[in-house]
């Protein structure tokens, strides 16, 4: 039946109809993992025993006639910076190599309540800092569409596992594009929700004011179903809100795009964006025009400066968030030290990788005495400016369409020595985090080499329903469905 290739919506239907069991699905997924994981390297931890036990329990309950939530029995991969009680949560760092949290993230509790089955924890850039998954301490995940290329990052493991059909759904986290960029590189769908739409409790913080957990899948419908499970206001996260929270995003999928206004922000189609990517995204805009939407040109003038503001705010917050990794209470402690300071310095120097150290250094610098106003405060002021510009744009259109990344997936090792070049691949995605907006990345074609191209739909705050329905309309109009590439 090739259950591992099915979408979550298809599996939900089959499970409800009794035409397959959760156990069959989970076994099929692990069979696929056994077949391709050696080449893809998406997973850091597999939870085979627990997953099968959970599947059996769901099958028992369903057989007993219990009415279960729609996704009960559907397999999911969880990014390794989301805490799972009793299951190691490493953030792909030596620092947390042996860290087994005694608590679960709120989203993980929600997955369990909804009967989703966690297949394993997936690879990422260390502490979510990176755009290629190459900053993992443990392994380099490959892009299933071309094993010599990166899957993107930091949620590269999530995207690659989906692309290789090693999971049906996945959770990622997005601070500057970490869900959308790998989704684009791997040809899958990823949503970065509005800041506050999903609880961050249990997500190991990178930059608290930008981080969001988000759903990933192989179709907009799947992403809508998973978003319905994880979104909520959480009493454990003071930054979470329940404005306009939808219980079932799938119910909004068929909103008509005819009559909608689609904005093309001109700053996202300029220099540095490859011709192939531009054409594919503009073609998608044409599709919307054909569906009866009006395409209008809009402007987000500050886009060019967003990257700077992003690096200030994210590094500053990261330097503080990661100071707790000191070898005292959890995580790595150096073997050799003479004094307390020694223990701190040695544990942190040995436990963190280069990119993490670089960002901690940058963040420490921008917050240090005398520089706060010049950098952090300036970044926050810019944030307000950018929010205003987006508000003005959304007065003219329902959502924006842009490339997710200026290029398709690059080669492993291509950008490792030039952080600024690497950072530039985030140019289209970071504005969304700074402004706290929702954005969806979904496939909109392939380049000449057959690599997926992603487009990004950006909505106003809590406009996830609009984005998902627009994405769904595009999939229907183009007859698009995900095709598993030949791996290896």
């Amino acid at each position: 039946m090739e259950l591992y290739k099915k979408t979550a919506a298809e599996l939900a239907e089959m499970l409800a109809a009794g035409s397959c069991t959760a156990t069959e699905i989970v076994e099929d997924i692990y069979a696929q993992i056994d077949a391709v994981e050696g080449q893809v390297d998406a997973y850091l931890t597999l939870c085979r025993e627990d997953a099968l036990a959970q599947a059996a329990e769901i099958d028992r309950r369903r057989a007993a006639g219990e009415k279960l939530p729609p996704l009960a029995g559907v397999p999911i991969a969880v990014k390794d910076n989301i805490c799972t009680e009793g299951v190691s949560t490493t953030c792909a760092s030596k620092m947390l190599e042996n860290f087994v949290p005694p608590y679960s993230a709120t989203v993980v509790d929600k997955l369990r309540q909804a009967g989703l089955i966690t297949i394993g924890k997936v690879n990422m850039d260390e502490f979510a800092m990176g755009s290629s998954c190459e900053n993992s301490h443990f392994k380099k995940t490959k892009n299933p569409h071309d094993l010599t290329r990166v899957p993107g990052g930091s949620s590269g493991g999530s995207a690659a596992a989906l692309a290789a059909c090693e999971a049906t759904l996945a959770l990622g986290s997005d601070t500057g594009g970490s869900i959308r960029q790998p989704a684009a590189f791997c040809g899958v769908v990823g949503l970065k929700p509005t800041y506050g739409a999903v609880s961050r409790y249990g997500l190991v913080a990178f930059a608290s004011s930008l981080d969001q957990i988000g759903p990933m899948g192989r179709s907009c419908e799947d992403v809508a179903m998973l978003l319905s499970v994880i979104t909520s206001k959480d009493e454990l996260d003071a930054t979470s809100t329940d404005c306009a929270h939808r219980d079932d995003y799938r119910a909004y999928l068929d909103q008509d795009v005819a009559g909608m206004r689609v904005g093309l922000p001109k700053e996202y189609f300029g220099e540095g964006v490859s011709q192939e990517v531009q054409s594919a995204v503009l073609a998608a805009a044409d599709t919307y025009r054909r569906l009866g939407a009006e395409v209008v040109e809009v402007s987000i003038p500050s886009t060019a400066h967003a990257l700077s503001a992003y690096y200030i705010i994210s590094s500053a917050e990261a330097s503080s968030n990661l100071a707790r990794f000191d070898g005292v209470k959890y995580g790595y402690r150096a073997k050799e030290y003479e004094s307390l300071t020694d223990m701190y310095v040695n544990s942190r120097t040995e436990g963190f990788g280069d990119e993490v150290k670089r960002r901690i250094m940058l963040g420490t610098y921008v917050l240090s005495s005398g520089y706060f106003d010049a950098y952090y405060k300036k970044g926050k002021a810019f944030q307000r400016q950018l929010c205003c510009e987006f508000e003005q744009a959304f007065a003219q259109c329902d959502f924006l369409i842009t490339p997710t990344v200026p290029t398709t997936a690059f080669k492993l090792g291509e950008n490792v020595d030039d952080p600024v070049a690497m950072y530039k691949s985030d140019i289209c995605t970071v504005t969304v985090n700074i402004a706290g907006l929702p954005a969806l990345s979904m496939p909109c074609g392939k380049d000449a080499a057959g690599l997926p191209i992603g487009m990004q739909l950006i909505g106003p705050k809590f406009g996830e329903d609009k984005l998902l329905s627009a994405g769904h309309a595009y999939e229907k109009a183009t007859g698009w469905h995900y095709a598993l590439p030949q791996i290896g």
Partner: protein
Amino acid sequence: MEYEVVIGLEVHAELSTESKIYCSCKNAFGGMVNAQVCPICLGMPGTLPTLNKQVVDYAILMGHATNCKINNITKQDRKNYMYPDLPKAYQISQYDIPICEHGYVDFMLNGEKKRVGITRIHIEEDAGKLIHDEKFSGSLVDFNRCGVPLIEIVSEPDIRSSEEAKAYLETIKSILQYLDISDCKMQEGSLRCDVNVSIMPKGSKEFGTRCEMKNVNTFSGAVRAIEYEIARQIELVESGGTVEQQTRRWDDAKGVSVLLRSKEDAQDYRYFPEPDLRAIYVTEEHVAELKAQIPELPNQKIERYMKDCQLPQIEATLLAENIQKSKFFEACLAIGGVSPRSISNWILGDISKTLNERNCEIDELALQPTALIEMIKLAEAKTISSTAAKTVLEEIIDCADADVAAIVKEKGLAQISDTSALEGVVEQVLADNAKAVEDYHNGKTNVLGFLVGQCMRLSKGKGNPAVLRELLEKKI
């Protein structure tokens, strides 16, 4: 040269909320190490703070009580530094927008009113505790105190002596107690302070360089630390040196302060807005509601005691500053029937002597206001002598259901004022002391006191001395 001393104080008061400031763990002192902790207290990866509403309310109450402006739209900031007792490696505190600012407190000292400005009051979390024990190769960390809510009350540099500092601290402490927002138990560390001291030539307008002393855990320690620091700075200046900006650590056991860090090593706390919390917004209505909840504070009580009870200022202050004594005093007043001055005299006299001996507060005694009033009534009516009254107090002080009348009867403490009953005694004493009687007639009238004493002895202390004196004068 004469110097003027400039002192500013930062008081940290632990708030007596039920739960901690950023998580729902119990806010309690003592108990087993690391027993009142959760992943949030330990700053474990992914955990987030949620702010306790009661902490905000308590801070606003303190702000109202110290005449502060309340910033009803505020936020929290991170103060970054690494220490093993600070699990997140930052303290959630407040930086540029404290919840309360620009206030003052007044208190009386040596008959004069003194006003000390309050720069700010902000909310923050306490850190854990390090345990140093020779048994272990390293230091142990107990995280129980992590997340205990604190308010930091920062004074203006308006204090000019250790005596003023002590009076200021007593005032702050009594306000906290009247508001019932802090246990104020110094021995448990629920009230601590940092002391900033500088000196300048008398008459100068320009403050000298200040030094900060940390780890001052008692009020008497604050006095000693200030005096030590004044002496240290004067000696430095007189010997031709200059005072350098330093942070020093007060060692109360040794009575000395030691250098913790100099200006060059000053910590760079890299404050920035706490991104895990949104804005704190308290409506104007709620701010006003809290203001209406402020009880009568020590200053108002002092005035009332002086005006309505005719107490001298020093006694009114001593009663008002100690919430337990003040409560007891007012309970006695409510019963009434005796003069407020007598009540005050007993509380501040014999009862306080016992409190000092036992190092406890008046509410820890079994003594009941009703019993004290009964006793004072008998004394005022001369039914018992002042000596007998002290004996009665000894009986009732540790007895919650004392019957004063029964004690007086049982111990035979009632005074005999009946002249017919005392005539025999007087005649006997006059007969036994012929020499004294002769002296009296020779003009040495002061022997009468001696004769009254003899009568008292003969009556086993029960004779009313005034009546005896009268009889002696008549019969001699």
